[in-house]
């Protein structure tokens, strides 16, 4: 009986280096079991320093109030909400990779899903900080929960998109965490059974919940992953849709736009994949995992980037066109004078956004560029800069000039504590990611083993004749000639 299934020959092998099952375990456990490298320590210490800067910034914010930030009368949401939307957006790639691509049976997800899911969880943790500390009186943050209280009871407003956000993001965080951790169980059990040191046996023993690899457990595990993927797929689309409702349901010119939900979701996937590229290009190099995160994986993710980048581009042009076509004076003013006009105070931000998000990803139409690591790394940074400016443009250029010119804002630039808060979330994100890459397997071992005999380089050659044929060969032999 052949266990091989048809696997496209257009795609290269997903696991290189002629691996067998044991070799996979060895390769992926090695970074966990070895002592961390000097590079790891340097990165980790820098991250912790940034995190401390963030904590100090939040201390200033809580002690002296939101007045520590340069927000003013018309700009109530500045860097803070920009950063919030940016981090949430980044958090979208992980679940997209693990859930949507699982449903689409994309084998290449197995190489990158674990790290991408971890990235999602850390990014959502960072995102959550911004609305929470923006509350000012953060000790009252629990007021967002609907619970019987002595203030009436006064319930929260379930008609408000800001409350939808509370539910959407906390649900997204919980589901991503469950998805990630249930996938980790078998791999933690592998680490436990290999462990030589006492603390490792203890730690991975507790963390793996007593997983044994029983067939019945695997059957349930598969059912769980599949249903969680089915649930997470609409969830991932709903989360950024709801974030976009924060803007779209308002009546502010520049925000009051029906195209926001799909536009935000595409943008989120776009920036999320860029962040996955940034992280994985470094991870594969530093941990020596080039045979598992291959050029093939990077190529495929760059295709997603060019696709979603182009969707975002069409969305930009559509909203611009509709602003003009609608004949709404205020809407058109927000676009024409506050954004497109290069000599306006924030015109530069609009063109930076356009350049980074719409024009630059177009180089990924070329296969050579998609497979060039340096270009990919540079582009992944550029895309995330662009996506940050997208949110900045949406927020700041829409509100710095309101309906009364006399109250038009002075030029808004962030205070040191706003910048510190943002850098602090980088610290949080990378501290978590460094710890993750040290103590957890960054690639899903069980899943790689599962696809090995279909997509590993040595096994691809052993397929039956039909399975191994390219499209041209198949056509040549089977097409009718008249």
């Amino acid at each position, binding site marked *: 009986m052949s266990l091989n299934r048809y696997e496209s020959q257009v795609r290269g092998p997903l696991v290189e280096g002629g691996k067998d099952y044991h070799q996979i375990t060895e390769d992926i456990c090695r970074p966990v079991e070895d002592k961390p490298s000097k590079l790891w320590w340097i990165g980790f210490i820098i991250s912790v320093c940034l995190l401390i800067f963030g904590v100090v910034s939040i201390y200033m914010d809580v002690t002296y109030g939101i007045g520590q930030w340069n927000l003013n009368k018309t700009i109530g949401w500045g860097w803070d909400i920009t950063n919030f939307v940016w981090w949430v957006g980044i958090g979208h790639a992980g679940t997209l990779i693990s859930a949507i691509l699982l449903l689409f049976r994309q084998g290449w997800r197995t190489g990158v899903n674990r790290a991408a899911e971890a990235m999602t969880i850390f990014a959502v943790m960072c995102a959550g900080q911004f609305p929470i500390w923006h509350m000012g009186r953060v000790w009252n943050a629990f007021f967002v929960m609907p619970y019987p209280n002595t203030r009436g009871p006064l*319930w929260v407003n379930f008609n408000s998109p800001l409350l939808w956000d509370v539910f959407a993001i906390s649900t997204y965080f919980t589901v991503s965490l*469950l998805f990630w951790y249930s996938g980790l169980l*078998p791999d933690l059990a*592998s680490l436990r059974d*290999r462990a030589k040191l006492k603390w490792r046996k203890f730690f991975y023993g507790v963390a793996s*919940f007593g997983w044994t690899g029983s067939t019945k457990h695997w059957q349930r595990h598969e059912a769980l992953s599949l249903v969680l993927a089915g649930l*997470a797929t609409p969830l991932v689309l709903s989360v950024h849709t709801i974030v976009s409702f924060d803007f779209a349901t308002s009546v502010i010119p520049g925000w009051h736009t029906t195209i926001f939900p799909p536009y935000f979701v595409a943008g989120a996937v776009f920036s999320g994949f860029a962040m996955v590229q940034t992280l994985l290009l470094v991870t594969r190099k530093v941990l020596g995992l080039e045979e598992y995160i291959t050029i093939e994986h990077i190529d495929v993710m760059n295709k997603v980037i060019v696709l979603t980048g182009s969707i975002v581009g069409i969305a930009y042009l559509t909203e611009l066109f509709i602003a003009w076509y609608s004949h709404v004076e205020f809407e058109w003013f927000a676009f024409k004078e506050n954004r497109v006009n290069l000599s306006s105070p924030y015109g530069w931000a609009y063109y930076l956004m356009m350049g980074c998000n719409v024009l630059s990803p177009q180089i990924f139409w070329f296969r050579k560029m998609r497979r060039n690591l340096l270009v990919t790394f540079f582009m992944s940074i550029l895309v995330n800069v662009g996506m940050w400016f997208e949110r900045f443009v949406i927020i700041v250029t829409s509100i710095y000039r309101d309906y009364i010119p006399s109250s038009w804002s002075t030029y808004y630039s962030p205070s040191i504590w706003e910048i510190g808060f943002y850098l602090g979330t980088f610290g949080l994100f990378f501290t978590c990611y460094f710890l993750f890459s040290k103590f957890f397997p960054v690639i899903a071992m069980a899943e790689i083993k599962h696809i090995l005999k279909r997509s590993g380089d040595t096994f691809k050659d052993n397929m039956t004749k039909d399975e191994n044929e390219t499209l041209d060969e198949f056509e040549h032999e089977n097409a009718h000639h008249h």
Partner: protein
Amino acid sequence: MAIKKFITGNFYDEAVLFPAVKKVRRAGYKIQDVYTPFPIHGLDKELGMKDTDLHIAGFIYGITGTTVAISFIGWMLAIDWQINFGGKPFFSLPAWIPIMFELTVLFSAVGMTLTFCWLCQLAPFVKKDHFNPRSTDDTFVMAVECTDKTNEAEAIAFLENAGAKDVQVQERETGWWFGRYDRESVVFGKKVAAV
């Protein structure tokens, strides 16, 4: 929850494992379980296992979430404390759809995961026997239960003949107990040799 005697065999290849499972079952041996490092599609059917009903549980948790959301929000905003938002109806269903959806997903995901852990008896500090540590690395470990009628030597020969490597007789606990993996296994007061 009992210590039983098993004959265990290691398999290195799925292509050997599948016919072996068929043979062993046909010969009337009782396969307690096959431990594998990754899910092998079709092995559950081959072992005569029924499909899991976990997804039905997920559905039930999901509709529970929807029901909780709509009834709770409806009660709060339309009955307990009515607030007039721009003259809109108190029972404004369309505005509640996002949270109804989120709670559906939340209840379903959390409920299913807990049910999964319950069914598989997985939790921190839970310890189990699993015959061979290589079954979480690279081999497929089949455990055949010995009954009074089992002729051990015959069974060992049968497994070896079916393609199993390093066949052994092992005494193992079938259930779980609270324990730590860095300490000697103690099953309900009785000592069991470490694997």
